């Protein structure tokens, strides 16, 4: 098992720790529901150093990235971030990641913890035509903190005594702090305004403490993976391993918009084009429970006496006070208002398709 540089800090904050893939991570410091509401109202600080990070450097770094991802990096400016799946030849999702473009010859990828090793092998396997190309694993040397919530901009500006208004949504910038370089991107996994901060591992504890000490009275609290999951589900941000894996293609999910057929060849293009032309056999939909009951990953979805698919994510939703979920089901049942049943402990409970995302933050005044 691995520990992030903040492991001892989490223990000292009496976090309930769980093993998440290879890492000991904080599930919750207080209550998941309290932490969830806190992020929606104020701001939360997350240790997400378990996520994999790679640096890609080389003359042909851009065409390499373009070949690996389904989204189109041509639209990216320097210092901009793009969300994309990486697919296999069959269009199955190997991983979903964020692509950070420093410039044409220098990118950073942030990938899912559970996929770090697999992704590295996959990237290296396809790197040959793009040499010289360097793929560096930064996961252990650089830590990643997420500061999320409506107050996060104010909190970060106070702590760093710098202006962040120039860092727009899905952009990033380097700042100097404490004689080191930190990179701040306006990204996140909660549906709120927020930032993700890359800091050298040896400075991670110091930055964590600085943010919390400076701002506890202003409304910043540490938040664990439990609330991260409920926050992301309300915002309909997909979770690898639950909502998608190598047997699912992006076209079947709600991230079908990340597949750009207009660009040059990429891994999986042919299969995905084929699927687009022939039609998909299942589609992702968001639903809420009509009957009482909490849907969970893997539960079957029924229409009359037939199984029409399965729940990929489900939970009690603190913001809407409903039980919600995402499912992959036969496409003819995914219209808003369509009703079906979720099987929970051998009984079927009514649910209906609703508009996604379940939660969308109010635009800033």
């Amino acid at each position: 098992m691995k520990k992030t540089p903040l492991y001892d800090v989490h223990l000292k904050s009496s976090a309930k720790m769980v093993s998440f893939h290879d890492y000991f991570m904080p599930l919750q410091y207080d209550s998941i529901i309290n932490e969830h509401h806190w992020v929606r109202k104020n701001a939360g600080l997350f240790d997400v150093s378990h996520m994999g990070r790679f640096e890609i450097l080389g003359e042909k770094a851009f065409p390499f990235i373009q070949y690996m991802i389904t989204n189109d990096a041509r639209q990216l400016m320097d210092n901009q971030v793009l969300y994309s799946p990486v697919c296999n030849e069959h269009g199955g999702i190997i991983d979903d990641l964020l692509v950070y473009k420093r410039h044409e010859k220098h990118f950073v990828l942030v990938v899912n913890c559970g996929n770090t090793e697999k992704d590295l092998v996959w990237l290296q396997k396809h790197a040959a035509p793009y040499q010289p190309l360097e793929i560096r694993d930064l996961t252990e040397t650089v830590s990643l903190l997420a500061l999320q919530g409506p107050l996060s901009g104010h909190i970060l500006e106070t702590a760093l005594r710098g202006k962040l208004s120039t860092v727009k949504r899905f952009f990033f910038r380097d700042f100097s702090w404490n004689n080191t370089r930190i990179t701040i991107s306006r990204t996140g996994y909660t549906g709120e305004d927020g930032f993700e901060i890359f800091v050298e591992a040896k400075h991670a504890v110091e930055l964590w403490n600085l943010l919390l000490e400076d701002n506890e009275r202003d409304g910043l609290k540490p938040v664990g993976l439990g609330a991260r999951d409920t926050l992301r589900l309300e915002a309909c941000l997909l979770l690898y391993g639950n909502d998608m894996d190598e047997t699912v293609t992006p076209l079947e999910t709600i991230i079908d918009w990340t597949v750009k057929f207009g660009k040059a060849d990429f891994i999986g293009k042919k299969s995905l084009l084929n699927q687009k032309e022939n039609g998909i056999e299942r589609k992702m939909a968001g639903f809420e429970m009509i009957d009482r009951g909490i849907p969970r990953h893997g539960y079957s979805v029924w229409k009359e006496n037939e199984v029409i698919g399965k729940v990929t994510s489900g939970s009690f939703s603190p913001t809407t006070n409903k039980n919600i979920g995402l499912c992959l089901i036969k496409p003819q049942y995914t219209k808003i208002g369509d009703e079906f049943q979720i099987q929970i402990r051998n009984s079927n409970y009514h649910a209906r398709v609703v508009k996604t995302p379940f939660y969308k933050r109010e635009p800033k005044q």
Partner: protein
Amino acid sequence: MNIPNELLYTKTHEWVKKINNKEVIMGITDYAQQQLKDVVFVELPSIGKEVKAGVPCAVVESVKAAYDIYSPVSGKVSKINPKVQENPQLVNEDPYGEGWFLQIEVSDPNEFNNLLTPDKYQSICQSEH
């Protein structure tokens, strides 16, 4: 950790209150609710259902997962607490009071001998901690 003296316990963290030699009320302990944290769902059996000691009789769900609740004694469900189904957080707020689960008509009073005294239960909680 609150372990009232007048109750009996199971090693699976249920409490039992004897009303008389034939009927008990049961719920989950303060220790259990602290471990679960936010209880967001409680599923209870219907009245009249036969339950068996050591066999699941109800389900509680926290934000993260679902957990079985075991019947402390064998018998028949004579009452359920509808309030705890409507407001699952009662399990967190008042586990020995408003957060009770079931009333059971006991079929074998000898089973009381298998339940734990407050002292014994406390040592189980401490060893788990």
